[in-house]
């Protein structure tokens, strides 16, 4: 039988190829099924191991926080093979804590962090990024210089994790390092970067104002700086914003500066804003009108009614939002009463004022 089959295969090369393909595929499917099942078994084992370790460590860590056990005694319970698991556990534990309790966790992690520092040389970006994240969460004060160095890592992922780690509340000392390298993150969404910087707190504002005012700084960085200042509601940024507004022609920077003025500006900042209501860019007109509506409680009603008839729908929408945010619903009602406003538009305006 086998000899017959071999004979058939030898006499027909195409069939031989098909037979070989079939054998290879059968081997492949068996290997795939085996791999899947082994993967499941391994995953289950890892999960069970994790649960076991957590059950063992939780009372020890709680005892350490309560001061009932020394650090040395706790570390003695963690074998070298478990060290990475333990750091990961501490990281997750630390995220739920603040103040002294968190400081205890950081102290417990400190002797183990050199393991992660060594991991910063790993060839995989993701491993390095994870190491940066853990080091900065558990030992930023001690290893800050290493995290700052990670801003220049060859991987954008690692650099971004470092930037986010350095932009934590109360760590303004690292802010300038991050701002200097912001141009590297040009691909990232600007509002996201701004939010990341604003998280540091008002201490970062001087560096941001400096970046905003510097004409040699990359425009994208200046836009991020302006957005961050707006998010911080920094009152001192109104003047720089007005200055930049009258010197730049970049649309994004203009919009960002108008954003600052809308939040923290005064009537005295309005002259350069008024000039922008006739801009060709709908987004600039919308922001300019909205800034006027927000800042000028004596705003010319006919000017705002003109905004309602702007060819771009965004202009009236942004004005309405600005008036609503300023609590000026009566102004909205008065705008709606204008003879040049259509009935349909009036209904929408009233509804918008209520919603």
């Amino acid at each position, binding site marked *: 039988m086998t000899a017959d089959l071999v004979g058939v295969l030898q006499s*027909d090369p195409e*069939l031989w190829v098909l037979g070989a393909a079939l054998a290879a595929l059968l081997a492949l499917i068996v290997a*795939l099924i085996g791999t899947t099942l082994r993967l499941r078994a391994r995953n*289950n084992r890892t999960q069970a191991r994790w649960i076991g370790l957590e059950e063992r460590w939780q009372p020890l860590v709680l005892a350490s926080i309560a001061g009932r056990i020394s650090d040395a005694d706790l570390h003695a319970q963690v074998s070298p093979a478990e060290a990475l698991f333990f750091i990961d556990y501490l990281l997750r534990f630390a995220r739920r804590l603040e103040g002294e309790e968190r400081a205890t966790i950081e102290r417990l992690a400190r002797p183990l962090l050199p393991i992660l520092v060594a991991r910063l040389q790993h060839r995989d970006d993701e491993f390095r990024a994870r190491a940066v994240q853990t080091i900065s969460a558990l030992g930023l004060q001690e290893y800050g210089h290493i995290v700052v160095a990670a801003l220049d890592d060859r991987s954008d992922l690692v650099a971004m994790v470092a930037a986010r780690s350095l932009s934590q509340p109360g760590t303004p000392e690292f802010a300038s390092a991050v701002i200097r390298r912001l141009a590297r993150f040009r691909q990232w969404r*600007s*509002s996201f970067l701004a939010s*990341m910087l604003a998280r540091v707190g008002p201490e970062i504002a001087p560096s941001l104002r400096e970046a905003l005012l510097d004409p040699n700084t990359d425009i994208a960085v200046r836009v991020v700086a302006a957005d961050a200042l707006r998010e911080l509601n920094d009152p001192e940024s109104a003047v720089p914003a007005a200055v930049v507004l009258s010197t730049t022609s970049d649309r994004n920077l203009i919009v960002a500066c108008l954003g600052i003025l809308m939040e923290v500006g005064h009537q005295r900042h309005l002259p350069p804003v008024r000039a922008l209501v006739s801009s060709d860019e709908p987004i600039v007109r919308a922001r300019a009108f909205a800034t006027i509506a927000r800042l000028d409680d004596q705003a010319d009603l006919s000017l705002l009614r003109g905004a309602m008839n702007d060819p771009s729908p965004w202009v009236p*929408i942004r004005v309405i939002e600005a008036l609503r945010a300023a609590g000026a619903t009566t102004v909205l009602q008065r705008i709606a009463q204008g003879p040049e406003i259509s009935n349909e538009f009036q209904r*929408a305006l009233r509804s918008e004022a209520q919603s």
Partner: protein
Amino acid sequence: MIERMWQIIFWINGIVLGYFLILNTSYLVASLVSFHALRRYIRRLRALDLDDLLASHGVPPMTLITPAYNEEATCVQSLRSLLALRYAEFEIIVVNDGSKDGTVDRLREAFDLVPGERLATGALPTALVRATYRSRTHANLWVLDKENGGKADALNAGLNQCRTPLFCAMDADSLLERDALTRIVRPFLENGSTVAAGGIIRIANGCVVRDGRVLRVGLPRPLLPRLQVLEYLRAFLAGRMGWHAAGATLIISGAFGVFRRDIVVQAGGYATDTVGEDMELIVRLHRYCRERRLEYQIAFVPDPVAWTESPTRLAILRRQRDRWQRGLIESLLRHRVMLFNPRYGRIGLVAYPYFFLLEMLGPLIETGGYLSFALTVAFHRASPIYITTFFVVAVVLGAVLSVSAVALEELSFRRYSNTGDLLRLIWLGIAENFGYRQLTSAWRLGGTISALRGKKGWGRMERAGFEVTSNG
């Protein structure tokens, strides 16, 4: 004359063999690429702190547009799950597309809707919007009640009211996981030129759902939805992940995709004269951006999940597949200028030709192959061993692809935590090659014929609603 016919049949056999070889090689390559991409992706997820991302004010506001047509069975539950999503700032616009059932009444009762108007941001042409409602219980919920115009028309009506930089297009009967928006928005944060991103669709049949949340994931008992679970795993984890890794995503499911509002409006919104509006939009976005030399990215993200109810009856499933095939054909034919056109980069040279030659023409080639093979065997023009071996190879290769999709799931997200479910999926990966695959091929052929005959419309769909647990 007869010899001539046999020559033609052998040519057809040759074409079928070539098709089979290229198609399965591309599936295998996609699976391998996905394996590598998913492994990296999972590590990357661990390196990014998602909770930290959630807390960020920098995530762009988003509008969820959910067209609803005769969704009274599931609309309230779906909407409740949407309102509970974890995302910094979002608005929901439900567009009732002329439902004939009590969809609007159910929504009105559940969310205390009152008439309210708002200024439109766009002017895409749509069927008449009869009324606009806002919710008194949820400030971020709006309902548009419009005359029936189809899903694309409903999405355009929602787009006309969208005020946020991003919008999420989804089905009213889909359930988004709580962190789905946070996860899917990541490509937009990481790359400012991202114009669209799609998430993964999973089958909710067999899962335990409460308050619009999937509490326990499991395989459905009936065979038909169970087979679809495997199909979806293969399509998303092996197929779309592979195409994404190659930078050539050509499909984002209409059940869950996030888009940049401005670019979609500039490109003309959704096409209302096709049943494949989701794919057509993606192909058009590629074309729009390439023709204007805009820097752009269209991404697939494998971890944000939308759960959907799959058809449980053959007739409904057949209609769905018929519609999908028609949508594919309509989308591809409309943009045929892209075929092998270097102007469109890897889309024109790789992705589009793949979908055009293998996915669109596939059913025709396969059917031609079955017929010519049958003739070849019937008239003893080829060795039965040869034919049998070929079919066994085809079946085993199909099983390899399906089992590799199960392996990818186990490698990455492990949603089916019950080992029995895993074994069942593996078994289905083999079993589906005996009947189900041929059936879906036949349905796709039916869709191709329908498209050639100019058939329009979605066909009737039925929803049973999700399996729920008590609140206790």
